[in-house]
């Protein structure tokens, strides 16, 4: 099966351990998907590398395939709850897919230029920057003095209205640029993009917290579809990793969606920020230990 030869040998020797570890990881990520609207790949990708020793490229490809499954069910649920701004999803997803293609090519190029070990350190560093930026943007108060979001104030036409979110005069090129930038990071780091889309939609686009959760899931879905195809075409994704993760997350997503409808918006944001900082800390510890070992 795809990518089995890249999985570390100790996991080959203990397949039950592999399945159990993946299912547990999937359960935790599933709760976070339903609660925060993130696909979970920003957790899965570094954790597969840091905790299980799976190479970054295989981890990135597998986690994008997992994100596809994880976010599809959650998105269907949030669609029924009315938390999705379809127009925003369409525009952001289109530009995110283009960005993902560019990002995946950049990933391969950097790995070739730097070699696997240095590339792993580079990926750790990029993850730290992305995660800490995301945590900072989500934690701080969102409403600007004028009451308008960044994309409403951006003086770049043409402008569109998102009726479902009651947002008027959003800069369309600005929205596309946001999708493209996040898509590049999706393809490069193997993350679904939700960890970036959540603060972007809150602060830059101006959606409410509950709309952000549902809408970001929609964009994550299409970005990870593109990523799964690209990495799968290179043989850098494994169903041995994907399916146990999905089995665990199936229960987790239901729990997370239920919690999301019951938590206050500010609490959701604060918990998300704390989670992201926690993941960043684990990566930082691994990065420092690898640097000291060298």
């Amino acid at each position, binding site marked *: 099966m*795809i990518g089995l030869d890249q999985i570390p040998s100790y996991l080959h020797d203990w397949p039950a351990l592999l399945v159990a570890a993946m299912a547990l990881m999937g359960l935790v990520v599933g709760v976070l998907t339903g609660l925060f609207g993130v696909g979970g790949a920003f957790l899965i990708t570094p954790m597969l590398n840091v905790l299980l020793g799976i190479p970054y490229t295989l981890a990135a490809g597998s986690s994008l*395939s*997992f994100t*596809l*499954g*994880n*976010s*599809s*069910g*959650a998105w*269907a*649920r949030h669609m*029924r709850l009315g938390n999705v701004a379809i127009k925003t999803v369409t525009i952001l997803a289109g530009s995110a897919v283009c960005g993902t293609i560019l990002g995946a090519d950049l990933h391969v190029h950097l790995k070739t230029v730097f070699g696997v070990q240095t590339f792993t350190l580079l990926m750790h560093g990029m993850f730290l920057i992305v995660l800490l930026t995301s945590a900072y943007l989500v934690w701080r108060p969102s409403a600007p003095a004028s009451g308008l979001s960044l994309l409403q104030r951006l003086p770049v036409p043409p402008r569109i209205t998102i009726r479902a979110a009651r947002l008027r005069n959003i800069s369309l090129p600005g929205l596309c640029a946001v999708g493209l930038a996040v898509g590049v990071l999706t393809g490069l780091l193997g993350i679904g993009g939700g960890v970036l889309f959540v603060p972007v939609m809150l602060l830059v686009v101006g959606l409410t917290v509950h709309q952000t959760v549902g809408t970001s899931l929609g964009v994550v879905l299409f970005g990870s*579809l593109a990523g*799964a*195809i690209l990495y*799968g*075409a290179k*043989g850098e*994704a494994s*169903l041995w990793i*994907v*399916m146990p993760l*999905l089995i665990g997350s*199936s229960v987790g*997503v*239901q729990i997370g969606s239920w919690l999301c409808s019951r938590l206050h918006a500010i609490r959701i944001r604060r918990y998300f920020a704390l989670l992201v900082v926690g993941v960043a800390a684990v990566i930082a510890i691994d990065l420092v230990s690898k640097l000291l070992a060298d």
Partner: protein
Amino acid sequence: MHKAVEIGLLVLLPLLWGLGVEYAFEFFRRRRADKPGREQA
């Protein structure tokens, strides 16, 4: 295995799994919600 089949599995299996589980949970939620109404009737 043919490359297209491999990629198809990597995309379709997770997608169908995710949607299938969601609709299964929704089916059981609606069944639970319908039950008190039927008993009253």
